[in-house]
């Protein structure tokens, strides 16, 4: 039931290394608001529940979960927040990814977040009602904890920015929101048994990962068991007392932290080591078919006397469709073959690798799911002809999972989530293009397959009622009388049913353990594998030989194995009869629909910064910037005020201020505003000279994202510009109208210090004209192309070629020089109305981990990378002058995932690219690679 959550979260860990570059100026991918949501607000006793109209029913259920969680947490924390808590719901993860409450991209693994600035809790519904409940409570633990700790610290008048480490914050949220679950158990035992369980002292090393969440949870479970549940709250209440969290643990538990850590490790080993008495690792019992990356959803395809596994894999940061040949007789591994490269264009924007999103028909058609535009689609791909045959998209179905062909390949059944958030079963007939909805309720119905002897369906659902309420059991939909009947009713979760070639039904289940393969035998269920960690999916080569996708050593791989485990574990399929029972989650009681009101923009401060600088040369100057936005983050206002006066008499004429409004609500984003900038400006046309300029006017910008990877930008401004060139002797007045249009593309994949794969470019055309005095009149052209050629997983060759042209009367100049473009040269070294730049850089890993252990503290640096580079460029106004450049090597360090430090050594290429400088240049700078 919660497989997806675990697996998705695991991907976060993976994407930390190869994260997608978030939107930023000049390049960057696009966060697209495909849907125009009609937001409503329900006001409950403690929450403001924001949801859109279609999601009303599940929002009311979520509201009840929130109020119930509140009742529980107020006792656990012995505290309540005194403010109302805004809870924002989305019906799917795809809609959640459109939220403007956070500016960055939301990876697939994020199941919700609590945002400190406005105290917002933002949560998507992922199909499972119990999962929805857990995520709501998890985020509310954050709200309560933040508020509690703030109160503890302010009560004692100590700095209120002192928070526990992340493992405690997330561990507590897990511990106080989740019951025991299979995935968590599996990761813990895998970590202990495979030696990657991180000791207490190294928890910071895995900050932000799924493993950290789970280790934090296990550590707090251990504290509660060993020292008492009340100690958890005491840890928060004692936070004021010591500067370090280790000291707080020692004081609260009255035990040396080293002893606590050892006891914890001992408990875990004592619990998990005996598992090897009865269970086996995949690697021991099976042949591992894939080595690197992550691989999922194995499907067997027989073609021309060969056996292939078609699967979804991620070897290099892009999730794609692969095939690999099976050769059972050889110990050598076959090379995987790429079939469809995903996540580089809008057709295959993202694979949901861990959601069971692939099936292969006997006739050689592969059905796989990707996000494409606003919703998921099913692609039908011919394995024989190596081409996409068709794309199935459904306007009302947002996310799609687990496609499965009928025996004749003419129908596909799948599960999908509609606008109401209902996860239901559908059947699509390829020959008639007819879509039929099979179920229509709030229960999570997944993994449907056609029954082998007819048109009926078998699927997994949490509609189990009665004694095992909410468990994911096997059900049969009888197409003749449209009834749904239990095939199993056990106290366990079941998923991924498959028929063997001989027509027997198999599935995975976590009965009494983690997920293993079981066989359905009418009245009985037999356990057929006994692995120590979970099997996630499988496909049959023949009646006894299968390919599994399994989790082991914190990664997912394909294994070839046999289902010959013989055990006494045979259980009844139906352990509780409840044919007429139904369960339905409670909803918040609304006295009338008047308690559901339309959302209106309610603005509050996002941040405000001010600065005053006193400089012995330039005197005192200062300013402020603050922004306001509405609760959903769709509408923002930016105010900027700064004074650049160097002498008191200049104060009044040196005010710089602007007011902008940015609207992100729709697909097309726009911004407009007014500005007034004035003060002394450095004239890059003639070095060492300044002029006074006063510019005031307005602007209007439009951004239209074509897809996640490309967009069109338009910018228009009108500005009055008055320049005093030499005192008040020479003045230049102008009324400038400037228009520009750009096309931007970016599908790059990032490593720790910069892009590693893909390409990005921008083409801009612009025209600026003085419509009143004709003093200024020029056009602009920019073409900037960057290509990143992946040489292997961790090395790449980066290429850049850029041309910048302004041509006409009083055209603005470009300049280059310095760490961003022409390394080794000073800033402004070359300047001109026309400029070109070219760079080539070989990027490679240098040091993976570098730790300095002082007697009192240890400092670790990770992902130190090396680079060999060469730059070249030139700039001119009317007549080309010279080409300069540089060659060299450097190291780059991503410091705490927040800033990249770069240090380069090299030689400048001088004299129109004819000679190298005599010595070396040394350059330190910060910022990501180009």
């Amino acid at each position, binding site marked *: 039931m919660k497989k997806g959550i675990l697996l998705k979260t695991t991907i976060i860990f993976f994407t930390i290394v190869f994260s997608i570059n978030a939107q930023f100026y000049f390049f960057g991918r696009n966060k697209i608001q495909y849907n125009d949501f009609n937001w409503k607000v329900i006001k409950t006793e403690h929450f403001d529940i924001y949801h859109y109209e279609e999601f009303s029913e599940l929002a009311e259920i979520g509201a009840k979960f929130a109020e119930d969680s509140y009742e529980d947490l*107020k006792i656990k924390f012995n505290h309540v927040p*005194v403010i109302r808590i805004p809870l924002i719901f989305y019906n799917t993860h795809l809609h959640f990814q459109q939220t403007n409450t956070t500016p960055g991209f939301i990876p697939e693994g994020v199941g919700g977040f609590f945002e400190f600035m406005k105290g917002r809790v933002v949560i998507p519904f992922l199909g499972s009602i119990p999962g929805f409940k857990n995520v709501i409570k998890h985020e509310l633990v954050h709200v309560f904890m933040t508020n509690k700790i703030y*109160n503890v610290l302010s009560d004692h*008048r100590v700095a209120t920015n002192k928070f526990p480490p992340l493992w405690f914050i997330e561990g507590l949220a897990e511990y106080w929101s989740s019951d025991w679950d299979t995935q968590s158990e599996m990761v813990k035992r895998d970590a202990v048994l495979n030696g990657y369980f991180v000791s207490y002292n190294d928890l910071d090393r895995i900050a932000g990962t799924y493993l950290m969440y789970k280790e934090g949870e296990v550590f707090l479970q251990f504290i509660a068991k060993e020292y008492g549940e*009340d100690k958890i709250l005491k840890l928060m209440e004692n936070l004021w*007392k010591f500067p370090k969290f280790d000291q707080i643990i020692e*004081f609260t538990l009255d035990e040396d932290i080293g002893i606590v850590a050892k006891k914890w490790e001992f408990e875990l080993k004592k619990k998990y080591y005996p598992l090897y008495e009865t269970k086996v690792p995949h690697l021991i019992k099976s042949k591992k078919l894939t080595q690197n990356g992550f691989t999922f959803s194995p499907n067997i395809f027989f073609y021309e006397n060969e056996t292939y596994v078609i699967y979804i894999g991620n070897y290099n940061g892009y999730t794609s469709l692969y095939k690999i040949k099976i050769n059972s007789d050889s110990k050598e591994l076959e090379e995987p073959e790429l079939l469809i490269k995903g996540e580089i264009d809008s057709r295959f924007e993202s694979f949901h690798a861990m959601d069971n999103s692939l099936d292969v028909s006997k006739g050689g058609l592969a059905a796989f799911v990707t996000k494409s535009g606003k919703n998921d689609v099913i692609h039908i791909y011919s394995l024989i002809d190596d081409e996409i045959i068709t794309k199935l998209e459904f306007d009302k179905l947002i996310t799609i999972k687990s496609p499965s062909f009928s025996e004749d390949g003419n129908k596909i059944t799948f599960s999908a989530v509609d606008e109401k958030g209902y996860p239901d079963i559908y059947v699509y007939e390829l020959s008639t293009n007819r879509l039929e909805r099979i179920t229509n309720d709030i229960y999570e119905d997944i993994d449907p397959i056609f029954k082998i002897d007819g048109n009926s369906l078998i699927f997994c659902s949490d509609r189990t009622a009665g004694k095992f309420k909410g468990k994911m059991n096997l059900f049969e939909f009888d197409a003749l009388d449209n009834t749904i009947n239990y095939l199993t009713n056990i106290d366990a979760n079941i998923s991924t049913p498959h028929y063997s070639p001989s027509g027997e039904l198999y599935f995975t289940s976590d009965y009494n353990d983690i997920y293993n393969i079981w066989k359905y035998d009418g009245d009985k269920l037999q356990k057929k594998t006994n692995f120590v960690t979970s099997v996630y999916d499988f496909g049959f080569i023949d009646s006894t030989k299968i390919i599994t996708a399994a989790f082991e050593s914190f990664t997912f791989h394909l294994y070839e194995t046999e289902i010959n485990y013989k055990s006494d574990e045979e259980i009844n399929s139906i352990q509780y009869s409840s044919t007429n029972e139904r369960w339905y989650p409670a909803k918040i009681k609304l006295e009338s629909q008047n308690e559901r009101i339309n959302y209106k923009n309610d603005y509050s401060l996002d941040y405000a910064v001010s600065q005053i600088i006193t400089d012995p040369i330039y005197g005192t100057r200062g300013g402020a910037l603050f922004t306001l936005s509405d609760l959903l983050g769709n509408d923002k206002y930016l105010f900027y005020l700064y004074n650049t006066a160097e002498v008191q008499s200049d104060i009044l004429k040196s005010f710089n201020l602007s007011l902008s409004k940015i609207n992100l609500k729709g697909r097309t984003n726009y911004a407009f505003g007014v500005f007034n900038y004035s003060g002394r400006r450095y004239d890059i046309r003639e070095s060492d000279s300044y002029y006074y300029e006063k510019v005031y006017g307005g602007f209007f910008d439009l951004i239209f994202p074509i897809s996640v990877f490309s967009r069109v930008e338009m910018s228009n401004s009108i500005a009055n510009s008055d320049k005093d060139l030499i005192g008040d002797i020479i003045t230049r007045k102008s009324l400038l109208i400037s228009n520009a249009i750009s096309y931007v593309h970016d599908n790059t994949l990032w490593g720790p210090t910069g892009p590693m794969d893909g390409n990005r470019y921008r083409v801009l055309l612009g025209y600026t004209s003085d419509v009143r005095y004709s003093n200024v009149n020029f056009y602009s052209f920019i073409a900037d192309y960057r290509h990143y050629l992946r040489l292997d997983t961790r090395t790449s060759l980066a290429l850049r070629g850029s041309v910048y042209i302004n041509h006409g009367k009083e055209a603005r100049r470009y300049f280059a020089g310095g760490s961003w473009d022409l390394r080794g040269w000073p800033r402004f070294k070359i300047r001109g109305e026309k400029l070109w730049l070219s760079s080539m850089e070989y990027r490679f890993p240098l040091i993976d981990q570098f730790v300095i252990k002082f007697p009192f503290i240890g400092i670790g640096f990770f992902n130190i990378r090396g680079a060999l580079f060469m730059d070249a460029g030139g700039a001119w106004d009317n007549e080309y002058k010279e080409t300069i450049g540089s060659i060299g090597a450097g190291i780059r360090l991503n410091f705490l995932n927040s800033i990249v430090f770069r240090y380069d050594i090299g030689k400048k290429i001088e004299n129109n690219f004819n000679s190298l400088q005599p010595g070396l240049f040394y350059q330190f700078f910060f910022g990501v690679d180009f």
Partner: protein
Amino acid sequence: MKRISSILLLLFLVGCSKPLILKRITFNDTQADKTRNYINNYYFDIALKDSFVFKKEISIKGNLDINPFFFYDSYLFFGDLAGKFYIVDIESNTLIGDNQFNGSINVPPILSNYRLFIPLNNYDENYATLYFYDILNNKVLIETKIDGNIDFSIMKYKENIIVINNRGLVYRINLAGGLESKHKLISELRSEPILLNDIIYYIGFDRNLYSFSLIENKAKIELEINDLQKIFSFNKELILVKNNSYAIVKDDNISDPEFMPVPLNNIQSGVSDTNRLYFVDYSGNAICIDKVKGTVQWETKLSGFTNLPLVLTDDYLLVTNSIGEIYFINKEDGKEYTRIKVEERIKTAPQIYDNKIYFGVAKGLIKVYEKANNK
């Protein structure tokens, strides 16, 4: 000019600290002991019979813990969580002395023979300190170090000060500051200790009932039931509270309590007078139960989160919630008589003394209300 500035500066600096000197106080140890409450039962045997109006606000440095106040004569003694100790003249409600310590003061002091015993949880140290403060001469006489924190009320027992720390150690310290004895309890405390008939009762971390005899210096488990939530006492009675039931026991029948149901989900606090018991849960549901019959006399639903102790007078039950309200409930019929409403979060149980109500609120403030007809 320089001389004047220096004098002004000196006056300013002197004005910043107010010595803890009480030369005018007339001290009587017996009287001081009477004002203390070691039974965790916030019952004030006085009739209020009136509504209250705001009198004064006293600004302090930190916020206060649940039960910080000690009143004696015409003075209020207390320390805040930022480690500052104060003496307030309650006739004028003005601050007459204060002293900043490095840590946090969680529980009220004890006053005995012109000496203040101030318990401080030290910042960045594994110990707490019990200061013996001479209030006639404004000086610390003795500092006694206590392992861990002092989170529970210190008690005067005969000629000793009894301190129980957060690690389950009982310190018996004589009035000269000497350690008389130190004993380990069977379990750490999760409730305020109750001193009844020379025996300290408390709930342990495993939610069983424990005791420690101050005569025999002997720790004992009284009741193994694993689900006790609260205890408090009235006269010779000990009231044991679970999530939704209670039992009244005396020292001769502790081992066999009869728990009576209470129609509340999670009892947060209870208080007792001669004939009745009053309980409130975290959601502000208050209930009154006849002690003899065990029947419900009345129930009432109040708003807000309630995690502060119930306070009882001869006429009202005072219920305090997190949203800044103190309800005055008529204890005969459960109807609201009046309420005090403040803007800030209330941090302490309201304390009644000299016809005034004192309570601490967030942002480092103590609010003082007095009877309306006093005006």
